[in-house]
């Protein structure tokens, strides 16, 4: 009997844990029996609206007209260039010719997904539909579509194909029970975007290249200051096996605007 009681107890415990786990997971999703929550409806943070870039990081490269990189006598690139280019990447960067880009109609090489967020300007973020977040830039008049479902189209253009998801973490959250409480999948508030199928472009407007094999991973976070100022932070990792020795990391920020003031669409410029 004692043995049977133990078995009953174990069974009940296991059943309870399973039930509780499913409840915990369900608790983060839509109402039981309802349709799955769309990415738009389940957005943990508000990213839509107008945002203006605050040009602080890499100010020289972003704000001033692009100038050709040079090798210093020590063999390093001049001007504090921090892009971890490999030898092939350096060779391509040194050969930058904006006139050639203009002649071939490729003035937008610096406005591809791997650099467009670094361009001084404004973003207009809207939901195109329940599954797609749209980012328009006034600099270069570019449009990025961040698909929470499968990216559409073949890619191969400046903005490539972007797969979006709300970042989640697993957590044990019922007080006092630790693992007994089950695993809850919770949204952190970050938007993760992975972009590939890119047309080769520039990481900086002065011809520092990225290739078609580039995979761009971005995290979008919203930071609200005590005074209500709201910023959009974009942390970017560029993985390019062709031109980079290691992943290239940057972070860029924008300040929230409450209207479209300053929105000034301008075409791409090679210099």
């Amino acid at each position, binding site marked *: 009997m004692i043995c049977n*009681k133990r078995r*009953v*107890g174990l069974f*009940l*415990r296991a059943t*309870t844990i399973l039930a509780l786990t499913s*409840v*915990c997971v369900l*608790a983060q999703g839509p109402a039981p029996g309802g349709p799955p929550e769309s990415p738009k409806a389940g957005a*943990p943070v508000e990213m839509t609206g107008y945002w*203006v870039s*605050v*040009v*602080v*990081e*890499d*100010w*020289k490269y972003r*704000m*001033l007209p692009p*100038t050709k990189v040079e090798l210093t006598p020590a063999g390093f690139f001049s*001007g*504090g260039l*921090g*892009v*971890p280019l490999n030898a092939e990447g350096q060779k391509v960067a040194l050969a930058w010719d904006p006139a050639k880009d203009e002649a071939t109609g490729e003035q937008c090489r610096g406005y591809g997904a791997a650099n467009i967020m670094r361009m*001084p300007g*404004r973003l207009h973020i809207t939901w195109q539909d329940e599954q797609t977040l749209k980012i328009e830039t006034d*600099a270069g008049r570019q449009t990025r579509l961040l698909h929470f479902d499968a990216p559409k189209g073949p890619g191969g253009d400046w903005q490539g194909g972007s797969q979006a998801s709300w*970042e989640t*973490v697993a*957590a044990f*959250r*019922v007080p006092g029970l630790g693992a*007994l*409480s*089950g695993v*809850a999948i*919770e*949204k*952190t*508030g*970050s938007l993760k975007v992975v972009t590939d199928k890119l047309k080769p472009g520039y990481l900086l407007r002065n011809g520092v290249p990225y290739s078609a094999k580039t995979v761009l991973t971005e*995290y979008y*976070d919203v*930071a609200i*200051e*005590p005074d209500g*100022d709201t*910023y959009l*932070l974009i*942390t970017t*990792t560029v993985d390019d096996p062709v031109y980079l020795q290691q992943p*290239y*990391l*940057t*972070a860029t*920020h924008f*300040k929230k605007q409450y209207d479209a003031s*300053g929105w000034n669409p301008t075409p791409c410029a090679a210099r």
Partner: protein
Amino acid sequence: MRKISGFIALTAALLTSAGAYGQFQFGASSENSGIDISGDWSYIGHQDAAYTTAFGAIADYGGIPLNEAGRLFALAWDASRQTVRQHQCAGYGVPYVYFSPGNYRFWEERDPYTQKLIAIHMWFQTSEVRRTVWMDGRPHPPAYAAHTFAGFSTGTWDRNVLTITTTHLKQAWLRGNGVPNSDEATVVEKLVRHGDRITVFTVMKDPVFLDEPYSKTMINIRSIKDPTAWLYACEDGEEIVNRPDEKIPNYLFGKNPFLREYADKEGAPLLGTLGGGQTTHPEFAAKLKNRAASEAEAMAEVAPSRGPRQESRVVNPDPNDGEIHVLKVQGNVYMLVGDGGNIAVQVGDEGALLVDAGAGKLSDKVIAEVSKLSRHPIQFVVNTSFRADHTGGNAKLGAAGEDASLPGSFFGGQAPVGATGFFQDPAHHATLIAQNNVLIRMEAAKLPNDMIPADTYLEKRRRKYHNGELVEMFYQPNAVTDGDSIVQFRRSDVIATGDIYDTTRYPVIDLKSGGTVQGEIDALNNILDKTGFEHDEDGGTMIVPGRGRLSDEYDVAEYRDMISIVRDRVKAMLDAGATLEQVKAAGPTADYDTRFGANSGPWTTDMFVEAVYTSLKQSSPARRK
């Protein structure tokens, strides 16, 4: 069966709570989000690669929202300033610390019994910056507390974002080319972890040197292996032998020889490299296309603008709420704030020794607070000057005190017939001590006898072993007056400076009472001759100023630098034959006015400039003509 039933009951309770679990939002607890940033990290300099550690060319300020004062301060900065003893080991502030190369370590401190998060500690290898981010909800210290390079930080979690609020920062670098942040700056940081990276986003507000918030991102990457290098020894030395302490390397306004060096090298318009809020706005790129207009605007930015001078934007650290506030300094010494000038109180087995007596408006409350700190009455009051802010409470504090060393002594029975105050009954009165000129000036002002120090000294040093430590009074001739003293508590390692050092305004150099600008600079250097720092120009000898917040050596050095630099500017103009009005109009204090300036009140910027001008003129026989 009882066990099974119990478990079923527990299960029901759990399901009930799980039913409410939908309300259990991520990061519901502000002290713990479930995200952990503990571990070893390092800065990755893919962006802003030119600005790691001490890099940054002279006059490369693009993207920093400097106001006029900040820009002028940076342009006056000479890289040789780093050879000055107090600047050699200066610590790294926030957010500059995130540019430091080397290794970072973050770790949690938890209550061993409740496991609640108390603090997140941060260690940055370069400069050995030690930060504590308090997560237990404690308040920030009062405005009159000391500042450090790391400041005082509190934090909260919100989802996956750790928000850190930092106050009580010292004046430090925003960039290693002289771009400053002031001690009034505050910083809000957001640390967001994504896998093995932390994005650090900081927003600094500095009413003294910035015209807009300075927002900035940095990226830390995880170190998989515990790095071997964690230490950073710094000890100052004699880098320029025989250079007088009063010589602070600086460029006069408009005379920085490297003004255009960076702009020319990069082919950048000067206006852009001079920084300012506009340089962070996208529209600025278009503005730079008009080279002639931008050049004209730039040239207007390299010297003080004309017109009314800026005023201090610093909140007075004195609460001025009719109460006396007590702050433990260190050792046996406390600082009392609230009754005019600050009062330093030393306690121990003997009677309390006070440095200064305040304005006298709240003397009863001062006496009450001292009685909480000391089981013995006030025995000595040392006046650092004759000024009312420091001697106004002499009579009341003296009367409430008792000098136990006098009964039965020769002095105890020497009261002449008709004597008043201390002289009437010295044993039942605290002994008032000061340099002799204080007595002379107070007698000349016909102040009551019980306010006037009876125990005076003439030589440069008076000493007294009291409450278990040596207490030394050093006469500082012709500083802000001709009767100034500083008081050093040797074991406690505290110096009370009187008005020689005042964190709230330019020094009140009273020429009519014997003050001189050179004497003031010398006095500040004398203070610095007696100080030491504990770690990278933080702590060590603590300084109780005549007014304002608790300080240390580095704060005094910045104050000394300021007066020396203003002195140099006024002297250069004086040598060139400028009149007082011309000197005032030139704005020789323009980079310090947002910190110390005033256009009204008892001590204005104009009065300070006039004091410097006149003092210099009087010091040179040739200029007196």
